[in-house]
C-alpha cells in the first residue's frame, strides 16, 4: 500500500495517509463538495484496515475551520475506524486551537457518539 499525501488548498486540509500507521488531517475543510473530496481518503482508510498488517494506528485530526458536510464525513470516517477498533489499537487525537470553541465542541460530539473509540481532545 502506498502513502497518500494531499497538499492543503484554500478550502481543503492537508492529508497524510501512511500505511505504517499514521493518518493526519490538518487545516481548513470547507470544500464545495466534501463527499467528493473525501471519497479517495475514505477508500484508502478502508483498504488500510483490510489490507495491511499494521496493528497500531495514530490518527491526528487538527481542523481549524470546517463546514457541516465535512463534519458528516468525519462521522463516516469514525464509523469505519470504529469497525476495526477491536482488531487494531487506534489512538485518535482531536486537536483544537485553544480559542476554537466550535472545533472543541465537535470533538465532544465524537466522544459522545463513539464510546468505544479512544479520542483525546488536545488543546494547542
Amino acid at each position, binding site marked *: 500500500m502506498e502513502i497518500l499525501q494531499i497538499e492543503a488548498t484554500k478550502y481543503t486540509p492537508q492529508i497524510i495517509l501512511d500505511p505504517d500507521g499514521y493518518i493526519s488531517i490538518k487545516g481548513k475543510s470547507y470544500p464545495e463538495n466534501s463527499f467528493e473530496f473525501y471519497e479517495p481518503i475514505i477508500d484508502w482508510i478502508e483498504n488500510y484496515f483490510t489490507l495491511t498488517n499494521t496493528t497500531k494506528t495514530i490518527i491526528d485530526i487538527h481542523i481549524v475551520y470546517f*463546514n457541516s458536510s465535512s463534519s*458528516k464525513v468525519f*462521522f463516516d470516517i469514525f464509523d469505519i475506524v470504529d469497525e476495526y477498533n477491536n482488531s487494531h489499537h487506534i489512538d485518535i487525537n482531536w486537536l483544537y486551537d485553544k480559542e476554537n470553541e*466550535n472545533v472543541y465542541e465537535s470533538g465532544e460530539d465524537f466522544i459522545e457518539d463513539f464510546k468505544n473509540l479512544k479520542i483525546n481532545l488536545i488543546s494547542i
Partner: protein
Amino acid sequence: MQFHENKLISQIQHLKEEFDTTTTKLIKELKRQDKIMARSDKRQQQEYDELMDLKIELEETQKEIVFIMGAIGEYRTKELGNHVKRVASYSYLLAKYYGLSHKECELLKYASPMHDIGKVVIPDSILNKAGRLDEQERAFIQKHSAIGYNLLKNSHRELLQVASIIAHEHHEKYNGEGYPNGLSGEEIHIYGRITALADVFDALSSDRVYKKAWDDERIFALLKEEKGKHFDPKLVDIFFKHLDEFLEIRDRLSDPISS
C-alpha cells in the same frame, strides 16, 4: 401434541430483526444530522456576528481616518475648532432636503471634512496670510482642489471616492466661474454644489485670520445674491426654508471664544 411451526413466523422474525437494525441505524444517523445542523447553525450565527462587527469596525475606521485627515488640513489652515464638523452637518442637512438617499447623505457627511485636504501642500506663508493674496498666491491656493482630488481619486473606497469629488468640485460655481474646471449648473456634482454652500456659509459665519465673522444679515444677503451664480438655486432655497435647523447646528457646534 407438537404444532408444526408456521414458516411465516421465522420469516417475520427475520424481517423484524432487519427492521430493528435498520431503524436503529437510521435513528442514529438522524440524531447525528440534527447535531451537525445545530452546531452549524450556532457557528453560522457566530460567523455572521463576527462579520458584522468587522464591517462596523471597518466603516468606523474609515470615518475616523477621514475625519483625522480633515483635521490635519484644518490645523494647517488654523481653522481650528469645529469648522469641519459644521460643514459636515450642513452638508448632511442640504443633502437630506435635496432628496439624496440616506446612504448618500451619510457618505457626504463623513467625506466632507476632507474637502480642503489639498491645502496640506500649500505653504504657510500663503495659507495664513492676513492680507489680500496677489494673483500668483491665489493661483497657488486654488491648486488645493486638484491636489485633494489627486490624493483621493485612486482609492476605490466609496467614502474616499465621494471625498475626491468634494475636494475637486467644492470651489466650482453654478454659473461656471469657479475653479478648477469652470463647470456649471448640474455639471458640478451635487456633492460639490452642496459642500460649496456649506463651506461658504461656515466661512462667512466664522472669524478667519484675514477677516472677522460677518453678521447674519450680511451673510443672508450674500447667499441670496449668489443664488444661481455661486450656488445652486435649489440649495439656497433649501437653506432658507430650513434656516432654523442650520442655525441650530451653528450654535450647537460653535467654536469656543478664542482669547
